[in-house]
């Protein structure tokens, strides 16, 4: 097998194509089926081999390959259009195209496809790191376009003049110069790009359907079985970030309310059918708070709340949301995009204090068969005390006094899961406690339900915002008490007070503390981690979250007029025009001026003065001859004419001396024919 010489002129155009494309496609490879990435690599290698050996591939072969690609993508995705199938097919075909003999136009077309795929990657990830990587990929693409122009000159000239005796060898594009030019183009284009980014009027999408992305996300679910939350605590992923514009409540009051689970089947809690849509009946009783939540897309429908919203909920653009009577805020469609909303609320409130409807009461008292021990215990409490509040306290005291343990690794539970937990294993996580507590309450005749969401969060002091992660997921109970309404009771807090005071890790027994980054709370890495999250948060808020609202808000801060359509158009025109003007002025290359010595300039001025009086120096007339003639024509000025001419000739042809030059200047200035 012949060795591949990467310096052959034939290979240079191909490499200028393969390498930038590979750079763009590398991140795609993580999301594409492996066969597509592999075939792209195989195509690239084959194209290098066949170019090296000057072989070509038959048209039928290429057709077959393309059809195979279409078929494969159809099998994989069921479609060849759209953000997933379309991108996959484009990647495959861009590889197959490498096998063809490429004209300049083909190569440029492939590079355009590269630009398209680069931008299309942001469907998968818009992280800060990826953006930085893509800047380099874009640079490589631009450099390849520059190289392509240089290469095109060689090949076309050779093609058009086959008879020319020796096509003069064109130098291959120099790597450094080409990359440098690409870098310069990118840097010079940046102000224009940023201007467009800020001022181009943002439309609130989508123009057509958003992709249904099936990727599984870690996060809360609409059902709760023993063991579910233990999984979540392993995830360091961010659920949402919160900025308080009022003083934030204490961490132990941060119960971010998510799905409310009404129905129990003996093992799993869920809401089997929709709660009747009645308006929220609540009374605020103090501690107003205002906060803004930036919710990461979680592909589910609920939105998180803290406290009782003060007025009507904010209407989110292009989203239909409903607030149920159980304070569960749901969107009509899954949340697939990062979302920011602002809430004014009261932290202390009473929900439905004036009584429950019969349906609600029955539903929140319903229990399936089983768990006889738990029932018996609850009935015993109910018989001892008539006051609901006292029963609740009795149950909490039970959890506190008996040997219950907070553990991420509870033993498996049998058929009567609540009995097993309460009387046998006594080890559990928040969902065990919440579930058991609600079952006990219902058995004792107190309406109760499970509420899931997040508890606590981590304050980032650098940006003064709270980060709520998946591991902060929590489940607690809500019981209905006369006059007080629905009241939050957190049985986990009775077992492991640290859970709500200081977070998950503090509550876990030493052997179970979580390893990894999340365990570094007291570590030297913490400031770095906080800074990184701050940067990410700013990135999310200001770059990724720069939507219509943000744009208006930002521009209005500069100038109210700018936040209107007309304002943006004018702003773009004015600032863009100014930028272009500056750039065009810069673009004029500095041309070397014809150097003229000062003596000649002075002498020319002298000639011009004479010319105004009709004494014109001929093109070929020497300075001395001209002086002679001029003196004859103007005998009155003969003396200065001769003097100036002598000085000039001396400076030009003898030796240039500064004092002579000054003298000449003075004479010419004083010369008035």
């Amino acid at each position, binding site marked *: 097998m012949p060795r591949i010489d990467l310096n052959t002129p034939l290979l240079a155009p191909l490499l200028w194509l393969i390498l930038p494309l590979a750079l763009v496609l590398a991140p795609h490879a993580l999301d594409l089926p492996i066969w597509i990435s592999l075939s792209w690599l195989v195509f690239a290698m084959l194209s290098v081999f066949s170019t090296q050996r000057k072989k070509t591939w038959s048209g039928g072969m290429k057709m077959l390959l393309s059809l195979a690609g279409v078929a494969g993508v159809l099998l994989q995705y069921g479609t060849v259009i759209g953000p997933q199938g379309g991108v996959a097919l484009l990647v495959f075909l861009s590889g197959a195209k490498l096998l063809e003999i490429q004209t300049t136009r083909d190569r440029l077309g492939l590079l355009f496809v590269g630009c398209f795929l680069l931008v299309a990657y942001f469907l998968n990830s818009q992280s800060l790191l990826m953006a930085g990587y893509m800047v380099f990929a874009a640079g490589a693409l631009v450099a390849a376009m520059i190289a392509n122009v240089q290469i095109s000159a060689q090949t076309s000239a050779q093609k058009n003049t086959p008879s020319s005796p020796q096509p003069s060898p064109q130098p291959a594009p120099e790597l450094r110069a080409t990359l440098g030019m690409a870098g310069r183009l990118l840097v010079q284009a940046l102000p224009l790009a940023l201007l467009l980014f800020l001022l181009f009027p943002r439309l609130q999408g989508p123009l057509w359907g958003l992709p249904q992305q099936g990727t599984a996300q870690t996060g809360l679910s609409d059902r709760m079985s023993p063991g579910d939350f233990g999984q979540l605590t392993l995830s360091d992923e961010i659920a949402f970030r919160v900025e308080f514009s009022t003083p934030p409540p204490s961490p132990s009051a941060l119960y971010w309310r998510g799905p409310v689970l009404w129905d129990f089947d003996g093992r799993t809690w869920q809401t089997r059918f929709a709660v009747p849509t009645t308006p929220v009946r609540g009374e605020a009783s103090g501690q107003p708070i205002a906060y803004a939540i930036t919710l990461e897309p979680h592909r589910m429908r609920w939105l998180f709340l803290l406290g009782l919203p003060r007025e009507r909920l904010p209407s989110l653009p292009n989203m239909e949301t409903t607030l149920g009577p159980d304070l569960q805020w749901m969107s009509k469609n899954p949340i697939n995009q990062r979302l920011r909303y602002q809430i004014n609320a009261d932290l202390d409130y009473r929900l439905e204090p004036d009584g429950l409807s019969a349906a609600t009461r029955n539903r929140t008292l319903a229990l399936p068969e089983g768990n006889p021990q738990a029932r018996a215990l609850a009935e015993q409490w109910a018989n001892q005390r008539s006051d609901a509040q006292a029963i609740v306290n009795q149950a909490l005291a039970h959890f506190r006094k008996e040997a219950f343990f907070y553990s991420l690794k509870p033993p498996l539970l049998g058929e009567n899961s609540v009995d097993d937990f309460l009387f046998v294993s006594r080890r559990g996580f928040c969902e065990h406690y919440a579930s058991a507590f609600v079952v006990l309450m219902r058995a004792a005749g107190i309406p109760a339900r499970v509420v899931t969401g997040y508890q606590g969060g981590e304050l980032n002091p650098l940006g003064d915002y709270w980060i709520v992660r998946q591991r902060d997921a929590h489940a607690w109970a809500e019981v209905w008490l006369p006059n007080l309404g629905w009241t939050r009771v957190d049985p986990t807090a009775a077992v492991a007070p640290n859970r709500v005071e200081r977070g998950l890790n503090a509550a876990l027994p030493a052997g179970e503390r979580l390893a990894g980054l999340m365990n570094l709370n007291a570590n030297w890495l913490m400031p770095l981690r906080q800074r990184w999250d701050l940067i990410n948060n700013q990135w999310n808020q200001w770059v990724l979250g720069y939507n219509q609202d943000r744009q208006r808000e930002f521009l209005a801060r500069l100038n109210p007029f700018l936040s209107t359509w007309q304002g943006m158009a004018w702003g773009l025109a004015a600032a863009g025009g100014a930028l272009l003007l500056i750039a065009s002025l*810069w673009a004029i290359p500095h041309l070397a001026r014809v150097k003229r010595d000062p003596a000649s300039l002075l002498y020319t001025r002298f000639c011009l003065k004479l010319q105004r009086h009709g004494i014109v120096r001929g093109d070929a007339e020497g300075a001395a001859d001209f002086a002679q003639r001029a003196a004859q024509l103007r005998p009155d000025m003969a003396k200065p004419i001769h003097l100036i001419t002598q000085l000039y000739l001396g400076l030009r042809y003898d030796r240039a001396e500064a004092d002579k030059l000054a003298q000449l200047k003075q004479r010419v200035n004083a010369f008035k024919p």
Partner: protein
Amino acid sequence: MKFPALPYLPWRPPHLESSPIQLNARRLYILPTRAGMVFALLLLGLLVGAINYGLSLAYLFTFWFAGVAVVAMLHTQRNLFGLRLSAKASQPVFAGESARLLLEADNPSALKRFRIGLTHPSGVCEESDIPVGGKTDLALQLINAERGWHALGRFGIYSCYPLGLFRCWSVLELSDSNATPFGVLIYPKPAADALPLPASVGADSNAAASKTDGDDFTGLRVYQAGDTPRRIAWKAAARSQHLLTKQFSGQQGATLQLSWSQAPEKETEARLSRLTRWVLDAHAASLPFSLTLPGREIGKGIGEAHLRLCLEALARFGNPDAKN
């Protein structure tokens, strides 16, 4: 590269200018190439995608690519701006040889110029780079150029560097310093087969007597049928492509008269080819000769200048658009 003729504003047609000229903003046109249009469509598509999926980074990179294209436009114009062009004397050639019109491009700036080419309806040009502060000859190669004077006429100078998304160009018409339009003269193609030169005439009859034994060697001429083999200059013939016959003083006074009517061919171009061949042969043999064409007569002469005169006459024969 060959493009359709580059356009210019109809109310500002290029006029004949004496070189050198400097390309300034008033002379330069710029428009997107076809690839540039496709790129614009691509950006539009990306923008629609960015709006639809609400992807901020897609906005940003789409705008960045657009900015790169706009900046590249300025670079394209910059690549031609300030170049000083002057026509350069082009050597006459014979038809069938490669005829090149040369333009000297002078780059008086501290900026290297890349991939500058010429366009012409009847020629092709290799794109060239022009170094900083240097000069490069841009050669326009005429395709299938026929006999006669080929004025350069209007030509375009263009560049698509750096991205190929825009083409900047200028349409010019240049004369050399004597205000004559710039161009190249193409001589007729010499006939391929070597017919002997026609017999010399004008040698008087008594010269024939002295012919036999003149002793003074005066030169060589192309062998003609009937020449005695003893007179053949074998050594000289080995260097030339013809058999050469030594001539001695006895033959002096004989003038080789090449004329239109002597050529055996009937067709005009063929006759011109034949005469061209004879003129070249006679010059190679250092024979003095005269040339008679219908309407043009060139007296007896010898040497480089004479040859040139004859070849020019042949080239311009019946070709009134000939300059000079």
